[in-house]
């Protein structure tokens, strides 16, 4: 009998519970959540805000999940510190919980820029169900909103607000949307689609001040211009929730540093999901890839390893898929290269008329990145070529062709093909 403790009740935490229970039906599992909601599909909150899905679709697992898996769930339980020497955690409410094996899956929190007015009522991140419901509550009295940041969360927020009939301006510091996932050219396709659907995009500007006594009335840009907004959503990225280990001897960088087993430098403490720093196979460095599918995979491996397995994690990479107003967009691994960088090669196909853009980034004979806009059907194959580090030279001239497909990979993959006899 072991005593498992998991901090965090989202993708990584839930996936770890399932992994542990598939091996160990008996041991105690305690799951702590800083939120007041059973495990939900975090990436769906913008769809919920948009009114595209009902609240019952938010739950990631059925309500009986915790009982069925014999998990003791504590909601509204925030851990303030981990004490690896005593194998226990201390919560904000001063309770202490001990463990034999600990998984830190505390996720991340929105970053708020330090500007005047940022603490005002009416300024939100879009991270939790609570955020979503609070924003939703203000919509009946909201005519215009400003979104700070043109990343995935910012654009999803803008999309949702627009769908709800609110005028939206997205203020972006860089010269393009989705600068952490697309190159300049691909970003133009997305920007155009957003603008055609009534979302204003303001590039190269920062919000300097949020104006209003009591209620928010406007925002002021770095150019000095102001525009009306009574609701602000901040999408300026997230930072890993690592405060709970800052006094412990747990190694951190941007996130909590993990090894191949997703173990921290303390053997009975693991980390997974948005809080974990893992080896990124495309950039070749340790990085935080705060993404749902990455968290699910890491949670499963960490959970299994906590039961005594020794499964190696292959490493992470940035993978994003999003659709705005009928324009699907996928980004994998390296999405931008320095003009001066001659070690990387780009294969590109761009057709503004049909709204299609494809760019593949190669290092030698290996694919290390892809951007696909409009036509994403081959994205899974590109991801496979990246992950399995397959020498693409025999199919290099086929990669961007319309009829490129799995049969082209047959001679290159290691697994013996079983379905084609």
């Amino acid at each position, binding site marked *: 009998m072991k005593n498992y403790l998991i901090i965090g009740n989202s993708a990584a935490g839930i996936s770890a519970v399932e992994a542990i229970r598939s091996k160990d039906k008996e041991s105690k599992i305690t799951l702590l959540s800083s939120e007041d909601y059973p495990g939900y*599909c*975090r*990436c*769906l909150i913008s*769809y919920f805000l948009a009114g*595209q*899905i009902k609240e019952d*679709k938010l*739950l*990631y*697992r059925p309500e009986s999940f915790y009982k069925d898996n014999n998990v003791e769930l504590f909601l509204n339980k925030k851990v303030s510190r981990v004490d690896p020497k005593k194998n226990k955690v201390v919560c904000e409410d001063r309770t202490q919980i001990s463990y034999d094996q600990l998984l830190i899956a505390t996720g991340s929190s929105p970053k708020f820029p330090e500007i005047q007015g940022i603490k005002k009522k009416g300024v939100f991140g879009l991270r939790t169900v609570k955020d979503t419901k609070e924003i939703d509550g203000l919509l009946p009295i909201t005519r215009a909103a400003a979104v700070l940041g043109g990343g995935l969360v910012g654009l999803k927020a803008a999309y949702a607000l627009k769908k709800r009939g609110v005028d939206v301006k997205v203020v972006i510091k860089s010269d393009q949307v989705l600068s952490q996932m697309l190159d300049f050219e691909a970003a133009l396709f997305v920007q155009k689609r957003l603008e055609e659907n009534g979302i204003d995009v303001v590039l190269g500007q920062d919000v300097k001040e949020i104006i209003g006594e009591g209620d928010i009335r406007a925002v002021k840009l770095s150019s000095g211009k102001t525009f009306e907004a009574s609701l602000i959503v901040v999408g300026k990225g997230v930072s890993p929730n690592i405060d709970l280990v800052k006094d412990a001897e747990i190694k951190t960088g941007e996130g909590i540093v993990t090894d191949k087993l997703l173990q921290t430098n303390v053997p009975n403490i693991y980390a997974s999901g948005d809080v974990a720093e893992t080896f990124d196979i495309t950039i070749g460095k340790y990085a935080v890839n705060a993404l*749902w*599918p990455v968290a*699910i*995979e890491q949670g*499963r491996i960490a959970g299994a390893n906590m039961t005594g397995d020794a499964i190696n994690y292959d490493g992470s990479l940035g*993978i994003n*898929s*999003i*659709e705005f107003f*009928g324009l*699907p967009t*996928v980004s*994998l691994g390296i999405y931008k290269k320095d003009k001066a960088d001659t070690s990387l090669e780009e294969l590109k196909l761009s057709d503004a008329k049909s709204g299609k853009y494809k760019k593949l980034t190669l290092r030698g004979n290996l694919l290390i990145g892809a951007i696909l806009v409009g036509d*994403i*059907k*081959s*994205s*899974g*194959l590109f*991801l*496979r070529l990246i992950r399995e580090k397959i020498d693409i030279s025999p199919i290099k001239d086929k990669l961007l062709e319309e*009829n490129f*497909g*799995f*049969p*082209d990979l*047959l001679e290159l993959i290691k697994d013996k093909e*079983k*379905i*084609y*006899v």
Partner: protein
Amino acid sequence: MKKLFYEVKKCLGCKSCEVACAVAHSASGDLFKVFHEEKLSLPRKKVLSSKGNNYPVSCRHCKDPKCVDACMAAALVYDTKSGIVEHIEERCVGCWMCVMVCPYGAIRPNIKSKLPLRCDKCKDKLEPACVKACPTQAVIWQEEEVAR
């Protein structure tokens, strides 16, 4: 459990399986009515060619399904009993994560319906429609164990 196999040498690339698939998943189930339906039914399988051979490509219902892991809406569930990756359409938001991670490129986005096109092994029927439709018997529906 039964799975789809393909005898590549027999496949002519005639795409009869694609047509049969689209018809089987249409509202009417009738080839001559399909084109007039409000939502055009699209095939969940594609015949692709490489080096002179033709290969029908569709969801394999992997035992270790990457799409299920990636689905941020919990719209995909692997049913161990039926061996099918079930797609719960009411939960799907059309984010295309499943398309992005399928190692076989076997799931395609239907941008209009906002639902992925993926083989469901014609689960309500005795055998998938593509099996009967193949004029050369290149599509084989059999137990996994007896396959070569």
